[in-house]
C-alpha cells in the first residue's frame, strides 16, 4: 500500500485526535503552503537559485515530518542539503521525484478529510 510508506498512519491518527475539528484546516494549510513552496522550487531549480532551494525544501521537509509524510521529507531533505552545499547535480530529478510524492501525499490526505 502506498499509504504506508508515504504517510505514517499512527502519526496521522494522533493528529486527527489532537486537532479534532481543525483537522481539515490542517490539511488545507499543509497542502496550500507546500504547493506554494513547490512553485518557488520549480523556478529556483533551473536557475540554480540555491538559497531559495535550501530555504523552501527545508520548509516542506519540516511540515512534512510533522504530518508524517516521511518519504517526502527525506527527498526534500536531500534537496535542502544540496541547496545548502550549492551542489547542482541531479536537482531536476530530485524535484520531480518530490513533486510526484507530494501528489501521492495530497491524494491520501484528501481521503482522510473528515
Amino acid at each position, binding site marked *: 500500500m502506498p499509504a504506508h510508506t508515504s504517510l505514517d498512519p499512527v502519526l496521522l491518527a494522533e493528529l486527527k485526535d489532537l486537532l479534532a475539528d*481543525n483537522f481539515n484546516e490542517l490539511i488545507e494549510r499543509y497542502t496550500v503552503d507546500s504547493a506554494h513552496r513547490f512553485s518557488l522550487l520549480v523556478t529556483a531549480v533551473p536557475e540554480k537559485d540555491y538559497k531559495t532551494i535550501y530555504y523552501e525544501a527545508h*520548509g516542506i*521537509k*519540516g511540515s512534512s515530518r510533522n504530518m508524517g509524510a516521511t518519504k517526502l521529507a527525506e527527498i526534500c531533505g536531500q534537496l535542502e542539503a544540496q541547496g*545548502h552545499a550549492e551542489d547542482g547535480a541531479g536537482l531536476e530529478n530530485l524535484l520531480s521525484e518530490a513533486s510526484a510524492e507530494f501528489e501521492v501525499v495530497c491524494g491520501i490526505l484528501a481521503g482522510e478529510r473528515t
Partner: protein
Amino acid sequence: MSKVSYRPSKILIADDSPADRLILQSMLQRLGYVVVLAEDGVQAVEKFLSEKPEFVFLDVIMPNMDGVETAIQIKEKAGDDFIPVIYLTSLADAPSLARCLSAGGDDFLSKPYNPIVIEAKIKAFSRMREMNQTLALQKNLIEKNNRHLIQEQNVAKQVFDKIAHAGSLKLPIIRYYMSALAVFNGDVLLADVSPTGSLMVLLGDFTGHGLPAAIGSMPLASIFYGMVNKGFGMSEILREINNRLNQTLPMGLFCCATCFDISFRKQRVLVWSGGLPDSAIYRGATRTFERITSKNLPLAILANRDFKAEPVRFELSAGDHILLWSDGIQEARDRQGKMFGEQRLTSILERGLEASAVFDDIIGEVQAHIGEGERDDDVSLVDITFPDAELGAQMEKKGSKGRGCLQDWSLNFRLESSSLRVFDPMPLLLHITSEVPGLRQSNSLLFTVLSELFNNAVEHGVLGLQSSIKQSAAGFSEYYRLRKEGLENLPLGSWVMLEFEHGVKHNGGLLTIRVRDSGDGFHPTNKTTSGDTQHVYHGRGLTLLRTMCESLVITPPGNCVEAQFRWLHEE
C-alpha cells in the same frame, strides 16, 4: 515570601509554516497554555513586547527576520528575566545548531513534534527560570545590602573623623602616619592638651576589623577628650575608658592601647601600655632608644576592680622623642605573605639616625615591603618631639585653663518634707562634686562621707530614731520599718540642709560639707561629754567619717555637723 509558580501561562510560537504552527498551537493548548502566534521574526518581537509571554518557540528559518536574530532581540528585551527560547527546527548540520545556541537560544525541538517531549522541556526550563529568578532576587538583595553597607561606613567615618580629630593632633611636635585603612581596621590616635598643660596622647588598636572596631573607638574618643579637657589625670581617664569599654563591648572585642601624659614643665612622661607592641623613647643626645614594654592587659578586658592604671615614669629632656606604633608595622605583609617583623624594625631603631630619619625609614621600608600590590595594611606610627622650654611653654598654653571644670564654688541645698520622703540626693550631689577632677578621683570615699552625714540627719535628726535599736538582728529590721514609716508620715516643716564650699589650694582642694536638720539634736540627758554622745548616738558611723575627713565638728545641740574633705593632685 509566598511560593511563586514558575510554570509559564503564556507561550509564544513564531513559525512561518501555517501547518506546523497549527500543530504546535493545538498541542500547547491541550497542555493548558495560552498561545500567542507570530508568522515571522519581526512579528515575534512585537508580540513578545505586547503579550509578555514567559516561554518562546522560534522557527529558525523565517522570512523578514530569522530565528537567530529574533532570539537575540527577545533575550535582550527580557533583560534579567530568564525567558527560555526553544528553536523549532529540523536543521541537521552541527554549525547551524551551534550558531542557534550561541545566539542565546536555550534548546531545540525537532519535528515531528511530540507532546510528551514538549511538556518535559517546558518543565525543565521552568526549573531553570525559577533558579534564575531566585538568583536575580538574591543579587538585588546583595547589591542593596552592599550599597547600604558603604553608606553606613561613610557615615561612621564622618562621625569618627569629627570625634577623633577634635583634639590637638595638629600640634607641631606631633608627627604621625596612619594608612587610609587603619581607621577601619580599628586604629585610633587621640591627643589633647589638658588644662594643667600636660599633653595626653593615646594610640589604640581595637581587635577585629571594620565597623565593629570603629564603633568601639567612639566612646574611647569621647571619654578621652571629655576628661582631658576637664583636667583629669591619666589613671582616672584610663579607668573610665576601661570601665565603659568593659561594660559595652561584646566578648572578644577589646582595645590594645598606649597612653602618654607628657608634662613639659616637669620634663617627664607617664606611660601606661596595655597590649600594644613596645613603644620607645629616643634619646636625642645619644641617638639611642629605650624600649617601653606593655605590662598590662588591653582595655575592656578587666572589670574596673581588677584594673590597674599605674603609670611608669620617664624623665625627658629637649630633643628626646617618643615613638609609638601599632602591630600593623610588624605585621605588614609582602606579596608572599611574609611579615615585616620585629627584627627589621629593631635594626632601623639601632641605626643611630636623627629622629626624623627614623620615622621616614620605618614608613619607607614598611611600604617597600608591602609593595605596590594590595593595600590592606593598617600601619600607624606616631612621633612626638619633646620640645625645648620655650616651645614647651607654648604647648602648655594650648590647653585652656579649667575648661568646663569647677574651681571655687559653694552650694546650699535644702530638702523639705515632701522631697525627703521620696528623693535620694546622692547621685545629684556626686554629679556636681565630680565636676572637680580631684574630687571625682575620690568619688567612692566622698559618697560614703556624704551618705553617712545625710542619713544621720534624716534618721537621728529629722526622724529622731535611736541607733541603739539596731543592736540586735530583729532590732535592725525594726529600725528600718520605723524609718520607712517615719518618712511616709513625715510632717510638714521637716528639712535637711546640705551646704558645700569648695576651694582650690596650690596642691589640691578643700571641700567643706555642712549638714543641718530640723530635728532637736541630741537628747540632753546623754549629753555629758561630746565623746560619749558620739559613741551612744552615732555608733561607728561618725568614727569612720573621722578617718576619712580632715576634720569633723558636731555643733550642739547636735543638729549641725561639719566635715572637711581634702584632696591632693595626683603624683
